[in-house]
C-alpha cells in the first residue's frame, strides 16, 4: 500500500512548462549594495494599505516602523535603510498606477545594521500577541500573492490545524529564490517552522519540494534531528504544484472545495520565504525589510539570486546584474506564468516580488491568434476544473455578468489554459479583464 500512496502524490490537470532554472539554481544568494533612493508603497500586500507614521525630513533607522497596519487585513511597513524620508507621496507601482508611498533617501555613511537585540521572545507570547507581532513585522506571503501572513495564522475557534505545510515547490519557471533559501538556510527554515507549528498547535510540519530540487530535499533532511515532527515530501514536477490547494491534494490527497480554505481541511500552508522571514523576526529581530529575488531570463547579462532591500528600484537591481542585454523587450516581476510585466524601471521591488525576469523579442513576440477550435486542451489543463474557453469567449463578447455562472471568481489566473492553448488565445488576460470590470462595477453599490 505504501508504494501506492506514492502514486497518489499528484493533482489532476496542470501543465509542464520547461523550468529554465539551470541559469540560477546553483548561484549562491548574494547581497545587493545599498543604493540611494528607496520607495516603499503603502499597499504592498493584499488588503488595506498601511498608514504612514513618518513625515518628510524625518530620520529613519533600518528596520524602524514607518507605517502601521491600516486594518486587520493589513501589515506594518519598516524602513529598508537608514536614511531620511524624502517625501510621502504618490509613486508609480507595479500595476502602472500611482499609489501612496514613502520615499527614503539612504544615508551613505550608515552601517545599515539591524538591531538584533530587538528580537522578541516568541515563547513568552500568547497566540494573540504572536499574531499581532507577525502583523507589525509586516510579514506577508512571499510566494507572490503577498497575502498578510498573520491573517492566515489567525485560526477561528473550533477549527484545529493538524498539519503545517511549507510550500517549497517553486513551480514557476526561472525562479530559484525558495530553492536557494532551502539550500542555504535550512536551519532558519526549520526554526521558523517550529515557531509556527508550536503556535498553531499542529502535529507535524510537512515540507513539500518539487523533485527537480534534489539538493534542497537532501539538505533539509540532513538538518532534521531525529524525533522532530518534520518530514520532507518530494513532489512531482508539474505546474501549478505550488498553488495551495494543489499542494494539499498532492501531499495529503485531500481536496479543498471551492470557496473553502486550507484550514477547513486542517492544514495551514506557508511559503518557504514566509517561514524564514518569521524566523528572522523572532530570532534575529529583523522585520520584513529585504527579500530574495531571482534576476534571470535571456535578457540579463549576469543572472543572480540576490538579497534586495524592499523599495529598491528595479533599475538598480538590473544594473547590479550587468544591465540589460541588447534586444531586451519585456521585464516581468514574479514568475513567467503569473507575474506581471512592468512598464517602468523605476518600479520598486515589493514584498511579494520573487523574481525580475527579462525577456527578448524571441520569447515575447505576440503570436498570431487563431479562432478557438474547441479542442478542450484548456479544460484539461485547468487545475480548478473551470471552462476557460467558454470564459474567454464570453469575455470577448463583453458578457461579463454571464461569466459569474461559470465561476470566473474561482479562477486563480495560474495561466495553464493560456499555456495549453494551441490557438494562442490570451485566455487569462480576457478573464482578468472580466474580473476587473465586475469588481469595479460592484463598487458603486457597496
Amino acid at each position, binding site marked *: 500500500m505504501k508504494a501506492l500512496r506514492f502514486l497518489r502524490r499528484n493533482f489532476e490537470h496542470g501543465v509542464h512548462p520547461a523550468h529554465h532554472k539551470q541559469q540560477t539554481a546553483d548561484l549562491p544568494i548574494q547581497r545587493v549594495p545599498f543604493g540611494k533612493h528607496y520607495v516603499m508603497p503603502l499597499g504592498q500586500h493584499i488588503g488595506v494599505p498601511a498608514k504612514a507614521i513618518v513625515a518628510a525630513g524625518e530620520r529613519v533607522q533600518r528596520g524602524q516602523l514607518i507605517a502601521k497596519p491600516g486594518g486587520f487585513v493589513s501589515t506594518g511597513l519598516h524602513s529598508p535603510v537608514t536614511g531620511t524620508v524624502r517625501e510621502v507621496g*504618490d509613486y*508609480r507601482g*507595479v*500595476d*502602472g*498606477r*500611482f499609489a501612496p508611498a514613502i520615499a527614503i533617501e539612504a544615508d551613505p555613511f550608515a552601517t545599515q545594521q539591524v538591531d538584533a537585540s530587538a528580537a522578541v521572545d516568541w515563547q513568552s507570547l500568547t497566540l494573540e500577541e504572536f499574531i499581532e507581532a507577525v502583523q507589525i513585522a509586516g510579514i506577508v506571503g512571499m510566494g507572490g500573492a503577498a497575502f498578510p501572513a498573520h491573517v492566515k495564522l489567525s485560526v477561528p475557534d473550533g477549527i484545529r490545524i493538524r498539519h503545517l505545510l511549507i510550500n517549497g515547490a517553486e513551480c514557476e519557471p526561472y525562479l530559484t529564490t525558495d530553492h536557494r533559501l532551502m539550500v542555504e538556510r535550512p536551519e532558519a527554515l526549520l526554526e521558523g517552522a517550529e515557531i509556527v507549528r508550536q503556535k498553531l498547535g499542529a502535529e507535524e510540519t510537512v515540507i513539500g519540494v518539487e523533485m527537480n530540487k534534489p539538493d534542497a530535499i537532501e539538505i533539509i533532511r540532513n538538518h532534521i534531528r531525529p524525533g522532530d515532527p518534520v518530514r520532507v515530501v518530494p513532489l512531482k514536477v508539474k505546474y501549478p504544484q505550488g498553488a495551495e490547494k494543489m499542494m494539499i491534494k498532492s501531499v495529503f490527497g485531500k481536496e479543498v472545495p471551492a470557496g473553502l480554505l486550507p484550514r477547513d481541511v486542517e492544514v495551514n500552508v506557508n511559503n518557504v520565504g514566509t517561514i524564514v522571514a518569521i524566523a528572522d523576526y523572532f530570532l534575529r529581530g529583523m522585520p520584513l525589510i529585504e527579500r530574495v529575488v531571482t534576476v534571470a531570463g535571456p535578457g540579463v547579462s549576469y543572472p543572480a539570486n540576490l538579497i534586495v532591500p524592499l523599495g529598491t528600484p528595479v533599475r538598480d537591481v538590473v544594473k547590479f546584474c550587468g544591465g540589460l542585454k541588447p534586444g531586451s523587450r519585456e521585464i516581468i516581476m514574479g514568475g513567467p506564468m503569473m507575474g*506581471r*510585466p*512592468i*512598464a*517602468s524601471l523605476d518600479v520598486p521591488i515589493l514584498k511579494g516580488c520573487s523574481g525580475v525576469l527579462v525577456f527578448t523579442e524571441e520569447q*515575447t513576440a*505576440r503570436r498570431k491568434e487563431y479562432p478557438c477550435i474547441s479542442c478542450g486542451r484548456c479544460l484539461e489543463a485547468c487545475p480548478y476544473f473551470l471552462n476557460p474557453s467558454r470564459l474567454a469567449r464570453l469575455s470577448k463578447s*463583453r458578457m461579463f455578468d454571464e461569466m459569474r455562472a461559470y465561476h470566473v471568481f474561482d479562477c486563480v489566473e495560474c495561466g495553464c489554459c493560456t499555456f495549453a492553448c494551441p490557438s494562442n488565445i*490570451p485566455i487569462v*488576460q*480576457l478573464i*482578468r*479583464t472580466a474580473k*476587473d*470590470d465586475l469588481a*469595479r*462595477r460592484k463598487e458603486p453599490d457597496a
Partner: protein
Amino acid sequence: MNSLLVAPAIMVGIGLFFGAILAIAQRFLKVDEDPRIEATNNLLPGTNCGACGQPGCLPFAEKLVAGEVDPGQCTVSTDEAIEQIAEYLEVDAGRAEKLVARLRCNGGHLQAHQIAEYQGFEGCRAADIVSGGGKGCAWGCLGLADCEAACTFDAIHMNANGLPQVDTEKCRACPDCVAACPRDLFELVPLNQKLYVQCNIPLAGEAATRLCKVACDACGKCVADAAPGLITMQGNLPVINYASGGEARPEATFRCATRSIVWLEREQFQEQESRKAGTA
C-alpha cells in the same frame, strides 16, 4: 369500437372543462391595461439604453402615462418623437437639456508619453490591467476603443490621434461609454456648457507635463481669468462650477498653454484635426 372512442371523448371533455374555466377567468379576472402605455412605447426608440434612468423603454412608457416623468427625459428620441408623445399624452414635452459625452483627456498618441509598448489583447480594459497599458499618464485615455465598441448609436470613432471623437449629432447621452471606459474619462455634459476641462491628471507642474505634452500643470491661470468663483482648483485640476452664477466666457482658455481647458463650440479635438490638415 367502444373502447376506441373513450379516449377522445375524455380528451374532449377535459378540453371543454378547462375551456369553460378560462372563459370564466377571462370575464372575472381581467386586468385592464391602459392602451396608452403600448401606444407610447411604440413611439419610444426601443433601444432600452437606460439613459432616462428607467430599466427600459416599457417601464419609461408606464411612468410617462402615470405622469411621473416628462417625455423630454428620453434623451435618445428625436425632437419630433418627443413632440408626438407629448401631443398624444397631452402633456408638456419638458425637453431636457441636450447632453453629450465629453472625454476628460486630450492626450493622444502625439501628445502623451508612451513609456512602454503594450502587445496584448486589443482593448482598453485589457491594457489597463497590464501595467496601465504602457502609457506614461496613468489617468488618460488608452486609445484602444472600448468606448467605440460600446456605443450603440455609432457616435464614437477613434481619430487619427488615437482619441475617441464623439459625434455630437449622433450622441444620445446614454451612459454606455461612461461605463465602458476603465479610467472613467467620459462624462455627460450639457451641450451648451462650452467651457470644458479636458484633462484628468492629478499631478501638478513638471510632474504632469513630463507625462503628457497637453497635461494640465495646475498653473491656475484659468481660475484668474474667469469670473470669480466660476473655476476652482481641486486636486490640481480646474473644476468649473456652472451653478456659481459667474458667466463662462472663452477668455478663461486664452492663457492655457496646454489647451487642457477649452471652449467647445461643437466637437472636441477639432483644433487637432485642423492643425494636422494645415501641416499635411
